């Protein structure tokens, strides 16, 4: 534990005085933590509560924190106003498709980089690292033209297929780091038994790789789920929209006449935010591990 903020005891300060100032300091730290939590969670809680409010209620001055009643009907209406069920399905399909592709291809590629010697391996791996800093938007225009040429526009393919070709440099990097940490004796023993490269990967290494695979799956899920610019550009008809693009469409197409518009918008924001938050709560350990692995800290 870091002790940077534990106050220093000076010789001139009496024991009692030191204890009191120390307690005061702890009190200050707790207040700071509580205030920060409110600042960060507050907007979210406010939005969640607002999503249940009725028309006059949401515009009331002074605003009330809690809704008069939990109007679940807001959510029912939301699904009637726009095809949010469809957006949900699209988001799930794209996210799953991309995550499976990333897991498959990046595991195999990272395995190759970690366990096999071949001419040019160092340089090729430097290229992987270099693509980590490459902003994907830099190639947006020409990828759009490529997918247009292939006839993939307004389909899910541009959002899924590239992930089967290990375009996620971060996942390769993270998995390779993890492979390096697994002792080679295991592979060698299996090799002597006559197992092939893929057999070793599947039977010997994969079970040990589970934490890294979970982290990669989570980050891939978040990236696809939260992605806005790519579905915005590659998907053109409403029935193909993801939640992110659908929410933006809803924001600018809807009007107040339909009811408590802000309540609907907050409801839609909750719908899209809930899956990542639930995932985080379920898999917190892998999240933290993955972030730490990626930054190179041993923690």
């Amino acid at each position, binding site marked *: 534990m870091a002790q940077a903020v534990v106050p220093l005891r000076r010789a001139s300060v009496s024991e009692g005085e030191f204890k009191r100032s120390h307690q005061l300091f702890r009190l200050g730290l707790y207040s700071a933590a509580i205030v920060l*939590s409110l600042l960060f969670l507050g907007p979210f809680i406010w*939005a969640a509560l607002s999503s249940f409010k009725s028309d006059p209620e949401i515009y009331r001055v002074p605003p009330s924190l809690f809704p008069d009643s939990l109007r679940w009907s807001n959510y029912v209406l939301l699904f009637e106003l726009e095809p949010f069920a469809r957006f949900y399905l699209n988001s799930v399909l794209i996210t799953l498709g991309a995550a499976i592709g990333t897991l498959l291809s990046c595991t195999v590629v990272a395995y190759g980089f970690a366990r096999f010697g071949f001419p040019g391996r160092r340089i*090729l791996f430097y290229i992987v690292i270099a693509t980590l800093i490459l902003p994907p938007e830099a190639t*947006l225009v020409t990828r759009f033209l490529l997918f247009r040429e292939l006839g993939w526009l307004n389909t899910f393919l541009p959002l899924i297929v590239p992930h089967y070709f290990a375009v996620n440099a971060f996942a390769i990097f993270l998995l390779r780091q993890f492979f390096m940490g697994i002792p080679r004796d295991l592979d060698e023993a299996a090799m002597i038994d006559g197992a092939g490269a893929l057999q070793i990967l599947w039977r010997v290494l994969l079970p040990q790789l589970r934490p890294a695979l979970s982290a990669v799956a989570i980050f891939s899920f978040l990236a696809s789920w939260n992605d806005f*610019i790519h579905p915005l550009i590659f998907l053109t008809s409403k029935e193909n929209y993801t939640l992110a693009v659908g929410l933006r469409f809803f924001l600018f197409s809807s009007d107040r006449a339909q009811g408590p518009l802000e309540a609907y918008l907050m409801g839609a924001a909750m719908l899209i935010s809930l899956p990542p938050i639930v995932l985080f709560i379920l898999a917190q350990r892998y999240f933290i591990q993955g972030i730490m692995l990626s930054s190179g800290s041993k923690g």
Partner: protein
Amino acid sequence: MTQRRRRALTGYALISPWIIGMVVFIAGPIIASAILSFHEYNLLSAPRFIGLDNFVYILTRDPLFWRSVGLTFTFAIIVVILGLSGSLLCALLLTTNLRGSTFFRTALFIPSLTPIVAAGVIWRWLMAPRIGPINWMLDLVGIQGPAWFREPNWALISLVIVQLWITIGGGNMIVFIAGLNAVPTELYDAAKVDGANLLRRFRAVTLPMISPSLLFTLVTTTISALQVFTLAFIVTGEARGTPGGPAYATWFYLVHIYQTGFTNLEMGMASALSWLFFLVVVVIAIVQFMVSRRWVYYESGEA
């Protein structure tokens, strides 16, 4: 075939998906956009070679190019400075043996899980000029709140606030917590014996020890801040969804690329803009790594 050769061939076979993906989806598009940047292309007629015209136009006559560059850098610099120091302060707070620190960490982390579109929609409502809760609260203490994202002078600040809300408690904070936890306690004890006070210990022990984490977060945060786009679409998007408002106050670089390429269908011009973006990001990352040799401390002496 020798054993070594066989293993090399297997290695190539295993990384072949990446080689294909790299060529088709990354290197190919980069090269193609370099070529296309010397052409005029509007999707309807064939590309026409025009030499450096696109670049000359962008650098000398494009009324929005320099504006977008200035806005993007301003946004990135503010977000990097405030965001990183905010994350570091939160990490320091969460590593002081507070009871319930897991709860606090989760509370601070949740905004970073919120999709940017959702965060934007939420903050549009929080910062709504007349009826929003923020201006209502300001009103309570006698301050007349600005119109936030609807007012040109305040729009950029509004987006900075949303971006900081999303990022401060996120990945950077977790990286700092890990870095802080890895600092050996003996170093602090030694510094205390030498009579170093709180601030001095932070500067002489904490900062050097976490400097590798600082470098990592500095590079990734800078690059992602330069890519600001979605917020300018959602929060400062205007009627019918034109991004970058009001009065071009949040006309960021990617907004400029988007409008040039996908609204005005000037694909050659948009490619030229993309290439400039690519170059600038690479140069910034390299400079940050080079300068880091002066201030990043590696315990074992290796990078």
